[in-house]
């Protein structure tokens, strides 16, 4: 294992001079190689600064005349995130346990982990586009997209938490003659509960943000309204929506912070 030097008791050693130089050169080479592909043109920022200033000015003052529709769009986005995250948490509990090396044998953990890798590696926006094709335009496609992607993420995080537990309380439960599943419910889950709750709330926060994006592909919510308004060049209204998103996300962050405290 790659334990930090402090934990392993090994003296911390700096890389020798030449190796260090070479690794810095390698990093620089990667950035230089990517320059062309990414079409980095810093001069254009200066050249078009006038345009950017005009665009920025067009955003103000924000136009809240349609605020009822924005707020109901935002609420819909939160509702999508609630269901997408909730279903994902429910699925990630058993799947996370099946991914944990100290709970399940390798022939279960390995295939389960690979499936979770797939769920995780495909962006929720891509899933949203696919589900829109499958179940039609609307919020349900958004819920399905968040569900699949978030399950992949949470299963991995849950499994890592389980792999880091202290085995001795579990052995204490086992020694009473408890069944395997009771060892998990009484010995494992109480230990990982604070982390699991924290991960779930964090994913809920990011799913609120993601849900505002997947609206762009027709999966409902504030994103859909945002997309229509940006395409109509209504920047003052765009500004109003962005403010609503920022306020909502900050509010949810604050609330989940409070909930998290209750689990510790």
């Amino acid at each position: 294992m790659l334990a930090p030097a402090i934990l392993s008791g090994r003296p911390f050693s700096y890389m020798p001079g030449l190796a260090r130089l070479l690794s810095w050169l390698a990093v620089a080479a990667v950035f230089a190689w990517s320059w062309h592909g990414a079409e980095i043109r810093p001069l254009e920022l200066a050249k078009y600064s006038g345009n950017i200033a005009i665009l920025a000015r067009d955003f103000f003052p924000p136009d809240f005349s349609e605020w009822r529709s924005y707020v109901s769009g935002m609420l819909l986005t939160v509702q999508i995130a609630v269901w997408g995250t909730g279903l994902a948490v429910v699925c990630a509990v058993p799947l996370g346990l099946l991914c944990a090396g100290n709970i399940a044998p390798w022939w279960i953990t390995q295939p389960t982990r690979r499936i979770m890798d797939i769920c995780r590696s495909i962006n929720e926006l891509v899933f949203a586009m696919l589900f829109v094709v499958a179940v039609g335009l609307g919020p349900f496609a958004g819920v399905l997209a968040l569900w699949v992607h978030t399950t992949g993420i949470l299963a991995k995080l849950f499994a890592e938490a389980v792999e880091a537990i202290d085995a001795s309380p579990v052995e204490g439960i086992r020694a009473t003659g408890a069944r395997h599943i009771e060892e998990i419910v009484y010995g494992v889950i109480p230990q990982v509960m604070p982390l699991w709750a924290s991960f779930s709330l964090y994913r809920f926060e990011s799913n609120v943000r993601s849900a505002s994006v997947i609206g762009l592909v027709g999966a409902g919510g504030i994103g859909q309204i945002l997309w229509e308004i940006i395409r109509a060049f209504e920047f003052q209204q765009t500004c109003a929506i962005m403010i609503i998103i920022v306020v909502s996300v900050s509010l949810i962050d604050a609330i989940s912070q409070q909930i998290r405290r209750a689990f510790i």
Partner: protein
Amino acid sequence: MHPAIAIEALEKTFRAEQRVLDIASLTVTPGEMVAIIGASGSGKSTLLRHLSGLVRADRGGTNRVLVNGRCVQQRGQIARDVRQIRAGIGFVFQQFNLVDRLPVLTNVLAGALSRLPLWRTLPGWFPECERVRAHQALKRVGIEELAQQRASTLSGGQQQRAAIARALVQGAQVILADEPIASLDPESARRVMQTLADLNRQDGITVLVSLHQVDVALRFCRRIVALRHGRVVFDGAPSELNSRVLAEVYGGELPSRELLPVTTDALLPAYARA
């Protein structure tokens, strides 16, 4: 009557050909309180963990471990019904092995898991009779008022007594205690040992306790089994345990400081002097 514990030809080899246990035969009668002594690494913990089926003996061979007359493992195979057998064996660990974040009461109720159906245990719907039993067990070990607290808020001695209460809720006829006082201060250690001794004398529970301190073993147990390199090198009454035996048990590894009270006969309890 079955022996409480019966061990036959128990051998355990860890990797690198290291023989950690080699016990030809060891029998404990119901109602006995037996101390296992020996230097660190002599196989005390490994022996106790075999008795609960937490560790498998070497495959093959003729090894067999019976507790309460039921086979825990034989020929390196854990019995299929080991969970029911474990229910009759209370295991007390050096580090208590309670679940820190659960209330003491829930930790103690865990002793009832093996006899309750899953539809009750998974959501935590323990029947009233089990709750009463858990409270009685906590009262018995003297920490009833701590029932609702999280286990992590208890002192070491209190946690160890909660662990004993869990064994009581199991209805264990045998308690295996693996260095139960090694992490405790002297007063807590005394109370834990006294609790085990009371359960042994008043309830007839067989107690097999591994101990680091020979003087504690002499004070609380009428039979002492000494291990060295996984072999039984002494098995007898405290009165037979003299400094020559102890020198063999600890192989001169242990400085005399820890042995001193033992070797001075005047300090031994009455039954040990004889």
